[in-house]
């Protein structure tokens, strides 16, 4: 079984973001970067599938400037066999442009399964896998929380409001991965050492037309200072009145 996982390098989210002077991007000063969380689940799920099958290999693909090699190397040190960087100066916001480049790379790769995180945790569009599925003419199962491959067929569970949805599909196919499927392993020392000897191929990204751009970014307005009305039961009538008349939420 040959699996490709498309991964994205994203900033770690536990910081207060600033907007760059252009007003169209996040200020990247001092940010730490890592593999997008859902992509990490996808890499882990792919590795577990090949380990369970006892055969096959996992490749990872990432699009962007040379800094994405750091993220690709992390995947290699987790156990992935090969990495491919689709090189471009900046990552466009338009999923069609990205999906076109990914589809061109994946088209003749002979993959049984192509995996994505269900969305990147920075852009949070969750669209790229749909673009790739459409361009390659493959079935897509979005946001899987369980995934099994057996006898050349796949089955997956999707979490829906109030329950689950079980689906089956033929291979080759595309699946995107939700949280809960597998906690990503952390690289071992052996993994890190082995990664240095694994192939990391660099090719120019064949981006599609960019039809969507960010015009401006803005931070949420600062919260107004709170007001202490009083303490205990004596404050309740005034609080209720304010919620009704001033905040108008009751």
């Amino acid at each position, binding site marked *: 079984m040959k699996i490709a996982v498309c991964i994205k390098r994203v900033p770690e989210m536990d910081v207060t973001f600033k907007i760059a002077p252009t007003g169209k991007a996040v200020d990247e000063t*001092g940010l730490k970067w890592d593999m997008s969380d859902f992509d990490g689940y996808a890499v882990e799920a792919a590795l577990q599938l090949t380990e369970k099958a006892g055969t096959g290999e996992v490749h990872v693909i990432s699009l962007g400037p040379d800094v994405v090699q*750091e993220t690709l*190397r*992390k995947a290699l*040190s987790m156990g992935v066999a090969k990495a491919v960087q689709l090189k471009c100066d900046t990552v466009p916001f338009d999923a069609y442009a990205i999906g076109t480049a990914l589809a061109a790379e994946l088209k003749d790769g002979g993959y049984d399964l192509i995996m994505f995180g269900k969305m990147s945790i920075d852009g949070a569009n969750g669209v790229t896998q749909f673009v790739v599925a459409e361009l390659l003419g493959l079935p897509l199962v979005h946001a899987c929380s369980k995934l099994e491959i057996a006898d050349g067929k796949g089955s997956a569970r999707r979490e829906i409001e109030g329950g689950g949805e079980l689906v089956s599909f033929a291979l080759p196919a595309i699946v995107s991965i939700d949280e809960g499927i597998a906690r990503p392993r*952390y*690289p*071992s*020392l*052996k993994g*890190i*050492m082995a990664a240095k000897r694994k192939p990391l191929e660099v090719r120019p990204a064949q981006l599609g037309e960019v039809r969507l751009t960010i015009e401006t970014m803005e931070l949420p307005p600062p919260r107004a200072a709170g007001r202490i009305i009083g303490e205990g039961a004596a404050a309740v009538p005034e609080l209720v009145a304010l919620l009704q008349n001033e905040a108008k939420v009751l």
Partner: protein
Amino acid sequence: MPDINPRASEHAEIREAVRAACAPFDSAYWQRIERESAYPDEFVRALTAAGWLAALIPEEFGGGGLSLTEASIILEEINRSGANSGACHAQMYIMGTLLRHGSPAQKARYLPAIASGACRLQSFAVTEPATGTDTTRTRTTAVRRGDRYVVNGQKVWISRVQHSDLMLLLARTTPLEQVTKRSHGLSVFLVDLPDAESRGLRVRPIENMVNHETNELFFDDFEVPVENLIGEEGLGFTYILDGMNAERILIAAECIGDGYWFTDRARRYAGERVVFDRPIGQNQGIQFPIAQAYAHVRAADLMRYEAARLFDDSQPCGAEANLAKLLAADASWQAANACLQTHGGFGFAVEYDIERKFRETRLYQVAPVSTNMILSYIGEHVLGMPRSF
């Protein structure tokens, strides 16, 4: 705010992976281990399984084949995480004696097993009740009888014996009065531990200030096969000495990890704790000791990297290794005091972890080598003054 360690982004792969390996072992874990006076078995197993404790074993034997600089970063990050390397660091450097002086058969038999974690080599029996740092006066004897050495004597402060499969043992094979140099006549042996207590080794645990499993050992006609002698008979002391620089540098890195941990904790608390309507860190009496400790940690860190660089380049590094250990142990202790003082009474509460780390980092002033012995080394070997003892 960026990491207070400006080199935290160097060797990022190793640092991040070690941090990830340590992350599941949180404050609650270490408090439980301490409360139960237990050995952190799950923690050591996790680090071993990920290969971190085999960092210095060459790749041909299944280890990581890392440089000493990289290995030191592993121990630094373990201590920085709030853990203490004492439970496992010996696995990393004791095997150096076996690696450098063991026979091909010994290396082939033991190193892959140590690298995989199937075999734990974490104990080194050198210190004795009556000899201390004056190792040439070692009284434990190993007398050859046919294909065995028969060991008799006593050792003390021998750690992790109950959690190791193998132990290195230093014993006198030629009486002191029969050697031309005092350092001759000592030999190093590999001792199989699992059934040792039924063969003449008595282990008496010593309750102590930190949760380090340490013991007194009594050898009574304890037999060691001849094939377990490492290197040449009588040269064991030189084998021990040539591992000292690596040990000093690795211990210095542990102190650096502690130093950053204490400084980070102190500056955060100083910024959060409000007394008299302002954060206590606004008071110079609180702020300056933390800043001064941080300056010393940073300076010691530079010496640690310099010593490690020289070691990795196969250049003499005795002075730098000793200086690094001295400066780092002093810096972590200064940072510990600043951190405890900043936290006031809360620093003594177990749930803050500071009192535990405080006790643990105090140990570096004494073990594995006391600060005074390093000063005497610097005085005599670096500055050319007369031997002081």
